[in-house]
């Protein structure tokens, strides 16, 4: 029972972690809560849905190739969408009062949800079972191929992101912008480019998380992004918002916590427990698990 819940929690946690990265990265560079990120996740799920439905008619079923195309497209498209949203809705408000970008993010969220609803309908759609699910059993523990896929792909993407942030020039620029916009500009960094790249990566990872979510739960809907969005955001805060490693750890922690409370306490109250934990963490350790203590400027 316990080990089984851990397995479920790790799967769930992988999705939350990928999703949370977008929130935390954007918060890192712009100090804003990007409420439209949950719609990026939803759009990603729909892109995966259409490609999965179309692919078998075009290509012979070579599974690795399928994976590459689906996740590649989802990442690319949602990344570009996130950049477009940033450019149109957030960039004009870079120097506006702090609540202004929050409102325009809500506007974007309402807009995208309704766009998808009008385009594909308000009813939930079953995710195409192009791959089929293989069940494995190890000494009484059930694992299916989707769970393995979700976990592996998330880990690969997270390691790649970590390498990108720590080893490349762009990654370094990103960390610099997160610390101080003006000084980074003085050092010759084009902050607009860095912010666009941040949105691209965060959005792309969110889109992949959306596809994984669709595969795991088997159905999608135009408003599916909302609850996972709040939870991914919770995960980001749990780890310390603005901190990339924190978002990953926070995602897994929240996934496992949710699976355990669903298994041992009550599946109805699993979300309540997640939020109670969030409040407790913030009251007793406001900077999250990995958050750095930032000295208040006076």
């Amino acid at each position, binding site marked *: 029972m316990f080990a089984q819940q851990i397995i479920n929690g790790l799967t769930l946690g992988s999705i939350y972690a990928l999703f949370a990265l977008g929130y935390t990265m954007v918060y890192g560079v712009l*100090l804003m*809560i990007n*409420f439209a990120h949950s719609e990026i996740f939803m759009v990603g799920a729909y892109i995966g849905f259409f490609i999965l439905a179309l692919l078998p008619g075009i290509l012979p079923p070579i599974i690795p190739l399928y994976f590459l195309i689906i996740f590649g497209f989802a990442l690319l498209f949602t990344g570009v969408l996130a950049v477009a949203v940033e450019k*149109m*809705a957030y960039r*004009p*408000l*870079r*120097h*506006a*009062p702090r*609540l*202004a970008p*929050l*409102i*325009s993010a*809500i*506007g*974007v*969220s*309402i*807009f*995208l*949800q*309704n*766009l998808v609803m*009008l385009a594909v309908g308000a009813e939930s759609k079953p995710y195409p079972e192009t791959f089929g699910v293989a069940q494995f059993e190890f000494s009484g523990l059930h694992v299916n191929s989707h769970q393995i896929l979700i976990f592996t792909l998330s880990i690969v993407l997270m390691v790649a992101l970590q390498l990108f942030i720590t080893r490349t020039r762009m990654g370094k620029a990103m960390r610099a912008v997160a610390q101080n*916009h*003006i000084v980074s500009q003085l050092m010759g960094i084009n902050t607009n480019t860095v912010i666009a790249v941040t949105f691209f990566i965060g959005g792309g990872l969110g889109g992949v998380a959306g596809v994984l979510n669709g595969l795991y739960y088997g159905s999608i809907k135009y408003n599916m992004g*909302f609850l996972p969005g*709040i939870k991914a*955001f*919770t995960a980001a*805060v749990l780890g310390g*918002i603005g901190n990339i490693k924190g978002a990953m750890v926070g995602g897994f922690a929240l996934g496992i916590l949710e699976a355990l409370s669903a298994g041992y306490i009550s599946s*109805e*109250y699993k*979300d*309540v427990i997640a*939020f*109670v934990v*969030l*409040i407790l963490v*913030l*009251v007793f350790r*406001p900077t999250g698990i990995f958050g750095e203590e930032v000295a208040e400027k*006076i």
Partner: protein
Amino acid sequence: MKLPRPIILYGTLLLIAIVGPLLLHLTGGYYAVHVIGLIGIYTLLCLGLNITIGYTGLLDLGFMAFYAIGAYTGALLSIAGLSFWLILPITIMVGGVARLLLGAPVLRLRGDYLAIVTLAFGEITRLVLNNNDTISNGPKGLPRVGEKIQSISLFGFELRDDIHIYFLILAFVLVGILVSYRLEHSRLGRALVAIREDELAAELAGINVARTKAVAFTISGIFGAVAGTIMAHWIGFISPESFTFMESILLVSMIVIGGMGNIAGVILGVLLLVGAPELLRKFLGAQFVDYRMLLFGAVMILAIIFRPQGILPSKRRALELKSENPK
């Protein structure tokens, strides 16, 4: 823009608020009266939220929780047989105490962290109402089959139609405006603004920051709870669905788009955001009615890009925005 005789302006507006819905009611525009009533309820909510967001600068993303607490308290007591006028003070107590209990541990959190805690509290409230069967009857809401939320009666006259309730709501809104106005120009109000501007400086100037914040937080919670009770009595049915995160967010949007910290701005924001989808519904015609929320989202983005300070910003805030260099 300086108005020579504000009394005339406000008097005219009040007259419109009284006569307009009455004419609509008499000419059969019942749906319009219903929507105007809703605008009144949202005005009450936003006036309350404005005390935390606009005056004190505390971002609250879970305000609907207190609306829900007020609505459920009102509904439960009404089902138990109490009259509205007895329920009202009880709701005020319950709403205020609940708000204070939440506020005490979390008010020392800063900025976005406070926002997240209020968000979480809002969601917890909704989820508990949704999952609890014995008290709140889960997703089916209140009242249960065979029970009834009584309508409000005033001196033996039963307020049954929307227009009756509308005048009750209008009275509460006027009280809300008066309270907000007096608060803004009181010692407490100035202390709140001082905290918004610079918490440390306010503390050094001798303001008890924790207590002042708690008072503001409690007053705004009471606004929410009162609005909830009126709503429950008016509609006669409540369910957790009405108290979602999206609703809390819309309240914040109304305040920001209208103009934070300015009573007239807040009311304008409510009019625009509650009224706009209804007007769009009317003018788009049957075939485009589905596009109204799409347009609504786009309008929200454009409104905030062109007027990031809100349509009618408070004078004090407008001055700050001009003199302060960005970031």
